[in-house]
């Protein structure tokens, strides 16, 4: 069974310090924070690196590929798949898995980013990064 994508995704609260993230998402790009001091990526984005506390954090475009760390199919109400995906750059992010057969999903499955618009037609919000099983999976 395919996940029901008629669920309205809540419009995220936006702040000026995340402007680039949402702008990139609108262009179909996932950007994540990288620390110039310790070299670590982190997510969600912070002003100070959560590892070395440096303020030298910059946005980098992620490849947009990763693996499912864990997931759950929410069966109550309008169904959807919530997950944590480990990006190939390292960080794990909360997301939804879309355009998939949820009975075929599994941990360690390869996925790629796909953007969905939050809100609805009358009240559209920013595009948000979701993931979908990648065609090149060989696991």
């Amino acid at each position: 069974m395919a996940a029901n994508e008629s669920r309205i995704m809540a419009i995220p609260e936006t702040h000026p310090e995340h402007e680039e993230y949402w702008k990139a998402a609108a262009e179909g790009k996932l950007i994540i924070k990288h620390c110039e001091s310790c070299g670590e990526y982190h997510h969600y984005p912070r002003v100070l690196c959560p590892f070395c506390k440096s303020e030298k954090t910059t946005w980098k475009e992620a490849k947009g590929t990763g693996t499912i760390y864990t997931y759950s199919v929410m069966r109550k109400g309008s169904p959807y798949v919530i997950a944590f995906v480990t990006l190939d750059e390292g960080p794990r992010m909360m997301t939804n898995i879309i355009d998939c057969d949820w009975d075929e999903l599994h941990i360690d499955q390869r996925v790629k980013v796909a953007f969905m618009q939050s809100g609805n037609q009358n009240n559209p919000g920013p595009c948000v990064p979701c993931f979908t099983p990648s065609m090149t999976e060989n696991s």
Partner: protein
Amino acid sequence: MTIKGRAYIAGAFEHPMRKAPDKSVSAIHAECAKGALADAGLSFADVDGYFCAGDAPGGVHSMVDYLGLDVRHADGTDTGGSSYIAHVSHAAQAIISGKCNVALITMGGRPRSEGRSGVKQKIVGANVPEAPFELTYGPTAVNEYAMATMRHMHEYGTTSEQLAWVKVAASHHAKHNPNAMLRDVVTVEDVLSSPMIADPLHRLDCCVVSDGGGAIIVVSPEIAKSLNRPLIRVLGAGESSKGLLGGKADLTYSGAVRSGASAFAEAGVNSQDIKYASIYDSFTITVLMQLEDLGFCKKGEGGKFVADGNLISGVGKLPINTDGGGLNNNHPSGRGGMIKLIEAVRQLRGESHPKVQVNNCDLALVHGTGGGLASRHGSATLILERV
């Protein structure tokens, strides 16, 4: 400074109602306060310290005013369902440092009457840093715990059958509790055939949604010894907070690793010494993971540990939640920590139902989780001794 042996739990009260559409939340707090003070043999005039958490309408100031208290110490620490377990430790610290002598801790809520439950989208206030990057994906209490369960199954081979045993044990205890919301004994089969809520958690892997509340009284040793109640003293406590670690999230363990180690170190006892444990049971996975993290079994062996009735009083090695726990008895306001404290006090006093009372129960552990086991949460552990 240690709190070991320097503060006592003198009073405990669990509100008998599980559905209270005609009571205000503040009224539930007040009735619980009165019940716990009566249990201790104290009055409102004796209270000089007050503690409450996020369920208390208007917080500390509104509640102190509503209850007509005259206190010289107040603490509104909110770590979700684990708050009240942390409050006992904070009350002990306040008593030792001379800030108060009689601390009242209250909790109450009516999610059942208000239609709140763990399948609803989480609501947080403005400016919560992670909110813009998470809420749009529909996190709820149940699917966050489900994601932790899924990963635990993947790494350790934990099964739904093993998780079901946690619910089976709770139901065997609840049948003896006339106030329990669910009193029917269930089988592993019953749990597995209940509707799937969020894979892999079934309906019967989830706690009840109940109205109600409770209160606890913590006092100085001098006051405890002046009262005509069994002496239950605080031996050790620990707290911690764990999150998603900047993107290096590990959903297979909880903050209990830290809070438990702190509490055992302060108490000078280990998990083998514990006769009874109140273990937070918002979901079956909560119990399994916390038992591992507290050291009752090795990491990854929680499934084996909880299976085959090992948590049932009189049957297994570690009786837990002999009131029926959050899974069957009571989980008011979606916050189970207060009820966990109350059943531990009953066990230590020998006041649990005779069918579930643990013989010579002189050492108990209480552990709570507040927030999402799969994401950000607080943990609080308390070790109590009957003198």
